């Protein structure tokens, strides 16, 4: 008798657990759906892309910028590189650029989101022991569910 009670108790406990799990999953799915709808309507947030560019430029880290480089990115660097480049070309161009013009500091001064987000800032760098400042203009475009750099000017 006790055994039967134990079994029915276990079944009830399991049913409660399964029920709770089902409710949790359904809630998660609903939240996810709502989030997807929201994203579909407003697009992915651009702030992380701004932050990534900021970090990449501040540290002279081309690897950090790499995920933002699309199949064709317009680069305009004061070392003479200018034009549309593939992701591989852009990565190595930036890597070489940072190696020669080592960053001292970088921060975006103005950021504008919307359909065509862009930001401008000042890139302090050091070339052969001498410091200089260049102005940066970065524009983004949507690529599916993420943002890519459409243009990066360091002049």
């Amino acid at each position, binding site marked *: 008798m006790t055994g039967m009670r134990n079994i029915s108790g276990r079944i009830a406990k399991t049913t409660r657990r399964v029920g709770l799990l089902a409710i949790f999953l359904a809630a998660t799915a609903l939240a996810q759906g709502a989030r997807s709808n929201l994203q579909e309507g407003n697009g992915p947030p651009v702030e992380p892309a701004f932050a990534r560019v900021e970090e990449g430029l501040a540290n002279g880290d081309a690897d950090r910028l790499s995920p933002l480089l699309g199949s064709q990115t317009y680069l305009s660097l004061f070392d003479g590189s200018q034009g549309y480049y593939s992701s591989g070309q852009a990565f190595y161009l930036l890597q*070489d650029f940072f190696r020669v013009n080592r960053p001292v500091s970088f921060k975006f001064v103005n950021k504008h989101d919307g359909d065509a987000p862009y930001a401008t800032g000042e890139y302090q760098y050091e070339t052969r022991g001498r410091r200089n400042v260049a102005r940066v203009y970065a524009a983004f475009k949507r690529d599916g569910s993420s943002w890519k750099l459409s243009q990066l000017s360091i002049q």
Partner: protein
Amino acid sequence: MSASSKLRAVAPRLAGLVVALLGLAALELSAPARLDDLKDSWREERDRRSEEIVREATELFEREKEALAEVAALARRRAVGDRFDAPPNAPLVNDRDDGVYGYRLFDDAGDALDWRGNLPVAFDSTLRGRGERCFFADEPLEAWLVVVRRVELAEESGVLVVGKLFERRYRLRHEKFERISFREALAERFETDVEIEYGGDLERARDGRWRGFRLRDERGDPIATVAFAKPTRDEALADRREVANDWGAILTFLAALFALSLFVEEFARIRGRLAQFAVLAAALAAARLLLLKLEIPSRFIDGPLVDPKYFSSAFGEGLAKSPLETLVSVGLFLVLALWTFHAAKSFALERRNPNRALFFVAAAFALVFVPVGLRGFAAAMKSALFDSSVRYFREPELFSDPFALALHGVFLALGLATVSFASAALVAPFGWLPDRASRRRRAFGAIAAALALYWLVYLWWQDHPLLTPEVAALAFVVVVAAAGLALFYRSKTPAHALVNTALGSIAVAAMMNFFHSSLERESLVRTAHEVNRHTGPLLEYLARETLTEIETSSATRRAYETGESYEAAAFLAWNRAPVSDEPFDVAITFYDPEGERLGGFDVGAPEDSLVENALRLRADAPTTRLAEGADAREIAYGAAPVKRADSIVGYAAVVVQFDRERFVKRDVPEFLAPPYRFANDVVNLENLGVFVVRGAELVETVGELAPSIEIRRAVSDAAREKGEAWLALEFNRERYIVYALEILRKGERVVAAVALKERELAWSFFNFFKIFLAHAAFILLFAVVAVAVRWRATLEATARFRTRLLVAFVVVSVAPLVALAAFNRANVSEKNAKFIRNALEDRAVFLESDVAKKLTSADSVVVRDRAEYVAKATGMPYAVYRDDELLFASYEALARAGLLPERLSRDAYRALWKEGLTEYFETVTIDGKAFNQYYKRAAFKGGPYLVAVNDAFDPVRATFTTGDFDVFLFGVYSFAAALILVVSVGLAESISRPIDRLTAAARSIAHGDLAVDPGKPTGGEIGELIEGVRYMTGELRRNQEDIAALEREAAWKEMARQVAHEIKNPLTPMKLNVQHLQSSAAKGSPKLPSIIERTCETLLNQIETLNRIASEFSQFARMPSLKTERMDAAAAAREVAALFESERINVGVEAPERVEMEGDPSQTKRALVNLVRNAAQAEATRATIRVEGKDDRVEIRVADDGGGVPEDLRERVFQAGFTTKREGMGIGLSMIARYMESVGGSISIEKTGAEGTIFLLFFPKRFDVAR
């Protein structure tokens, strides 16, 4: 080899390794101390370095001064006689006309007698007082180093001013622009910042971190101040570390090389090719990684070779990050590929290890490997186009870019490596296939068919197969052809490598051409995005940048200080700001504090009202705004104060406008702002059509395409479905590829479409041959190297009938084609020049008459006003000269800025005003960019005026340019030439082959081989000759047989007579003795016992005589006498194979270079000929003579793929008189057997069956024989 001798052999390399490692250790240990030394003595070191810079820079300047003085001396000598009396092409100061040197010759009154170049020095009475001293003529855009010389002319004296361009402060974007800058030359040489003030003082020179010094004239007076940033300690330390790193890299590399060299000999000892391959691949991979890690050779090279923008692929974490790194990777890959090809080919041809199972495994591997390899190659070729800024097909010129030519070499090497690897994979399995030609052919066919099938399935299975079926089929054919040639056409590996290079070139050219089409499509996407990249924020950012440039520019300060050169200051601000790299119309205007216009410069001439709007923004600080323009335009404008000592002395206004309608074709001269290539650097922008639609409504259009309502709707619907779409549409009965992209424009969704006309077939041919011709240069180089190495064999080849015939065919057929092409090209070129001249002439006549209308007087003010009015009314760019001075130009700002000359060119002046011509046509060069200019004397009330028009500001386009013609010429003519070449090779081959066979047959006959086949009669004289040789060999054979029969009969008769005679001699005494014994016995003679004894003795003696006679005859009947000597069995085998070169049977030799043995060379060769001949008669198609030298013997195997010897006859074939052939005498194999026996060796059938027969001839290396 003993241990000590081994050590001696490797000692130098071991020593090298130790030295390199010691050097490395010493470098590492000494580096900190060296850095500390530098830190401690930095002050002295900095002063020393600064002094060195001053000394070297001064020396450089002195050299420039000397060079100018020499040019001035030359100019002075020539000035006396040449001037305007000189023939048109007389040598002058600036023969090169590159704008580097210029001169002016004035008479004492200051009238210009002669001039050349844009030297900015006007006559001034102080010029004469300068004597021999140099000075700087400093203008806002340029600075010139100038010297003045007095000259005595025929009737008067004059002043000659000669200058050299020293500093060009602007940079034009076209490819022919040459940067000339003494400042940059110093900055580059001393790796520091440099500033120069020509003719004045410099604030920087007083800065403690800078060092200043003067440049001085001949008297030692200062004429310029130079300041440079003093070397910093951090910079010096970084340099020293960099040098240490360079040496470290070199020493590590050397150590690795020495270490590797220690194992080179071990490589040959590795058993098994697969193991060798693994070791070599691992060694090359390690070498590549080491080079990458050490950055060798990139760390020692600058320029395009190491610039990722020219080519850089994400593949392999840096293995192809620049052209040079790609070259190193491809080079090592090629080494492995060529080795693999050679090893696979040798293995397949040796055929020592028949093994069906391994054959199938290897073939299956090849089937999997080859498609993967080909796809990888296709991906690499795609990367070559997509990951590079070099555009191989954009310009019609065949070799427009030497750097592109170098990249062609890299990709050709990749093509060769791919073909070598893939064909090696297909060839290698045949090493395990039994040695029979027919079976090999069948197996190869089966593998090729399976590969084709698998290749198709492989491509079909992939989401992105990269290749179309046509290109994939071509790649397949290339690889299979390379494998087939390696397997069935025996040649040395270098010859095969040359063929593989040509095949690789075809694959590379086809794929580059194919991927260029993809790139063209991709470029449409780029153009669609580019049209929409230029948003308001970007324009505003650029306007602000331009204002910042104006604020900080010394040219702006100078303009407001001197009250002149506002145009130059505006031009420099535009030129140095990032906006000049964009396709934007820009206006920069300077005002005084009250808003009065002082001067300015514009590109693309934005509307005046926009400039006025910008001026309204003037305030204490830079301000910018975005304007609401029409749909097709984005506009930003702004203003900034120009300050001097904190007070505002004026304002600068900037307008930046992007006009989509003029995006493709802007009316800005190419020398100033070349066509906007970033929008599409793959195809010519003028071939593009861009339009924006909103449903069926046309919002804007760029170019000349006019889309119908149906097209607009189709484009709009297609793009709105997925955001973008590709369409094939027809405009004006011409096919276009169209890319449609949905975009957001000012909050509204519209569709931007970019259309490109589909390429004509001639373009495809042209592009293919463009690549192929570039490759031909490398193939030729390869061939030259091969010839240099094997020049003797090449000389023999060129002397051959076939080669001469081929050359004759090619010359006779291609030469007229080339001559015709050259003639046609010259014709088109001439017609184009005439067309341009006529068009300019028409413009000049029109403008002249328009200006002349209502012209009330010849006064220059009146003429200028009227000319300005006509320019605005017609919108046509032109200029009016009064005498030699520019009176008016619609592009006046450029002249005032100093970019265009304000004076008529010397040659035009001479032709029009001295020789009295009424018109003149010349090519003018502005900073390396050439354009056409037409001058016409204008009848403006009899005044000294000229009207000048050119095609720089309003280009004249011929309907069919020489570029278009080149496409046709090389597209069609090259195809015809290639066709002729192929046909010529075929013809030469068909004519020379029978002759080659006849030659080989004659050689065989000379060696006594009368069974040789001279080939099939082909008709004509050659056919008759073959028939004659056949008849001759038949007759010879019959005669030989008859003679042999007669000789045999005569020999038998003689032998019979001799035998009878010899036998008779002993028989007579025997008979007499027996008769005597008979009669003695009948008579009962008492001496009978002694008679018996004597008779027996006689009989025995005579029997002995008979026995001796029999032995002597036996000796007489033996083989021809042996003439043994040390001989080369391998050479004998090769000689025999050569005899069969032109026969149906393919005879190969597998032998080391030399195999020595004792034997009779003549009889050895006869034996081999007999065996090969037997194989041929047994319908074998291939025979292989394999020679192997063992310790105590030499083994020669003759293998064929004939029908084999029946098992029951295996032993009998060596018996004399036995034969299975209808006409055979059965003596060939028995003679070989006897010869082998005579040298102490043997012959046997090692193997026989349906797959063929292997005869084994065994020779002892040494033997004793009665000679």
